[in-house]
Each structure stands twice: as structure tokens, then as C-alpha cells.
């Protein structure tokens, strides 16, 4: 059941990431909806599901930019893997913890993605990280807090308390 809901949400995230994210841009920074869905996937379904979901969602997202097919898949599967693994060591049902993980996940995704993307122009990477990735991470974390609040109201324990709920 959770797997099905998660698949639908992942699919929706891929669609919204290209359609909605550019419209809710703030100071050039966008929330990373793919990271959001992968992190919550890890929380609700575990490490393997998050890793595979990261790979698949990333691959679909990459199909929009064929020259870098596999890059998002790589970055998101790594992000899904480590964030899902870290939940065991954290207090899951805390909005600040979830926001912190989302921030770190967004940053890690951007670091992996853009380190490969800018591999021949590494001097551009710090500027990009400083200008967009940090702000994007904050934005994603803030959106995560909203998701947490909504989940709280809807009593979706898979999001508020994670796998053990």
C-alpha cells in the first residue's frame, strides 16, 4: 500500500519538479521535489526502496536532459541511500530533524550532480553551491516542514514517524 502511494507521489514529484518548481522560484533557488520525495520515501519505506526510487525518479528526470542521462539517477540514488540509512540514528518524528535531513540531502544531491556536471570547470562549483544550492536546500527544508505539518494534520504516520510507525 505504502509502496503504491509512494510510487504515485514520486511520479507526481517528477511532473511537478519540471512544471511547478520554476514557477515557485525564489531568488533563483528552487525546491528540490525529487529530493523531498526520495527522503520521505526512505523514511517511510527504507533504504533499498529509497535507493531504487532515487535511481528511477532520477532517470526519468534525466530524460529531459539526455546529454546527462544517469546523472540525476546517480545523485538521487546516493542521496536516497544515505538519508534512509541515517534515519536509524535520528529522532524521526521531529520537524527540525526532518528539515535538517532534507537540507543536507538537497545539498548532497547538488554537490554530486554539479561536481560531475562542472567536472571540467570546477571553479564554477563553489559559486553555484553558494548562490543556489544552499538557498535551494533551505527552500526544500522549508517545504519539508510544510509537508510534515500537513502529514501531522492528516495523521500520516509514515511521514511523521517513519518506517516503524
Amino acid at each position, binding site marked *: 500500500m505504502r509502496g503504491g502511494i509512494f510510487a504515485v507521489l514520486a511520479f507526481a514529484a517528477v511532473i511537478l519538479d519540471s512544471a511547478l518548481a520554476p514557477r515557485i522560484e525564489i531568488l533563483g533557488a528552487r525546491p528540490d521535489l525529487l529530493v523531498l520525495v526520495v527522503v520521505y520515501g526512505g523514511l517511510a519505506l527504507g533504504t533499498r526502496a529509497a535507493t531504487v526510487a532515487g535511481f528511477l525518479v532520477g532517470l526519468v528526470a534525466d530524460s529531459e536532459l*539526455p546529454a546527462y542521462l544517469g546523472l540525476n539517477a546517480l545523485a538521487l540514488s546516493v542521496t536516497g541511500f544515505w538519508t534512509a540509512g541515517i534515519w536509524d540514528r535520528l529522532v524521526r518524528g521531529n520537524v527540525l530533524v526532518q528539515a535538517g535531513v532534507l537540507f543536507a540531502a538537497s545539498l548532497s544531491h547538488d554537490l554530486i550532480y554539479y561536481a560531475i556536471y562542472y567536472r571540467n570547470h570546477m571553479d564554477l562549483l563553489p559559486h553555484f553551491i553558494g548562490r543556489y544550492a544552499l538557498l535551494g536546500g533551505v527552500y526544500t527544508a522549508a517545504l519539508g516542514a510544510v509537508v510534515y505539518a500537513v502529514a501531522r494534520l492528516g495523521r500520516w504516520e509514515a511521514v511523521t514517524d517513519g518506517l516503524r510507525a
Partner: protein
Amino acid sequence: MVPFLTRVLRGNRELSTLVVCLTFSFAALLLPSGLKNGISEVISGAVLGPFKRLAAATSDLTGVRSENAALRRLAAGLMDERATLLGYRHENERLRELLDFLVTFSEEEALVMTPAGVIGMPGGRTVEGIEIDKGALDGIDPGMPVVVPSGLVGKVSRVFGHRALVEPLTSASSAVSVTIERSRVRGIVKPRFGGPAQLVSWGMDYVPARSDVRVGDLAITSGLGGVYPRGLVVGAVAAVAEGPLTMSVSIDPAVRLSTLEQVFVVTGTQAGPGIRTEEQLRLLREVEELRAQEGGD
């Protein structure tokens, strides 16, 4: 090395999943670009295609909606502009008519005229008075004739500072000495009332029986009496009825008082043909002065 890695991966299913995903990811990254494009097209077409088409349709709909709103705004603006332009056209036609009047009118004596705007029409069912925006301070005096290109309007009855009241030909006390332009038959045009303030028609009195007057003949001012200058159109003969001693002649007035917007007050006469405005006279005076100065030098 390989057996060690195999043992580690067998013992850790999460890690092995990641390794598989990473392997596929790197493999995808290293594919030739043609193959990448092909795979991307398949994924994009199968997974995102229907939603892209839906999004495009929605976007088109949104575009049509906003375009519709923009066109509505444009149409409202154009309607407003059209109304303004129609106003200008109407004004232009009126001014052109007035200009033609000034250019083509010819008499032995030139009429000196001051243009004035109509600002009111006191009266009930008939126009008993016309209020204009020029008065004593503009050189207007009682008794001065008021004309428009189509003919005679009436005469100034009262003057104020910058206002004056014009008594039109339709007023009860009005009487104009006219001549039938074609046959030079003379008579007096007066309004005929069926009751208080109920103008029935306009009639030409004191026309001897069997005079040469026909329907359609123009009645123009005769100049007799000294109130109105000669040659201004008063109206056209609408009907003729023979009587034992005099003829009953009905006149259709040349001027529609209810539609007047601008009139000319005849403030005086000047030797020579044509009609002149105060502005023209001022220019003529300046030219005369310049000529005098040149002659003096």
C-alpha cells in the same frame, strides 16, 4: 578483491542495491549520445509524454484566457478611442462646414463675425432662447444677427459679461423681412402658433395673391429694416396656398435650432466681399500697419 566485495555485497542488501543503481547510472552516463537520446525519448514519451501534452493543453487554455482578457482590454480601449475619434470627426466636419461658409459667402459688404459656442437653450417645446458663450466683454451687443452656415439663427436679445441670449427666429416676437431668391417677391416670415408655446409652422405673410412663389424656393433676408444683413438663408418654401388677397406661404426653416453647437455673431460689416472673423481682421490690420511702415520708410 572481487571475492571480498562479493561477500560484502551479499551481506548487505542495501549496499548491493546502491551498487547496482550506481553501475546503471554510470553506464547510462557513458552511453554514446545517440543511444542516450533514444533512451531519453522512450522514457520521456512513455512516462512524461501524456502529462506534457496535458500541461501544454492547459497552458494553451491559460494562454487563450489571458489573451482573451488582453483582447477585451484592447477592445474597451479601442471603443473609447473610436468614440473620441468620432467626436473629432464630427467636430472636423462641423469646422470644415464653417470654414466653407467663411470662404464661399460673398456680399458687397463683408460681414465681420465673432464665433461663439452654444451653452444653453432655455425654453420648453420650442426653443425660446439660445445662450452663447460670448457677451458684452467680447464685443457683442443686443440686436446683432446670429448666423450659421446653413442660414439665419436669430438676433442677440440680451448681453451679459461673457454670455448673451439669442432670440431665435422661432420665438413668438420674431419677424424677418425676406425675399424669395428666385422671383424677388418680398414678405415677412413669422412663426405661427396653434396655442401658447405651440409652434405649428413658419409662415410668410403679406405676399400678394398670384405672386411667383413655388414650393422649394429659397427665402433669404432682404436687408430691409436694417436688423439682418441681406442674403442670409431663412428657409425654403414648403407649401403655397392662394387666398383672395394674399397667399399663404409656409416656410421650412433652414436652421435646426436643437442641434446647434456653434454660431457666428455678426458684429459689423466691412467693405468688400466675403465674411471675416475678428482674427482675420486683426491680421489684416497688422498687414496694413506693416505696409504703412514700409511705405513710411
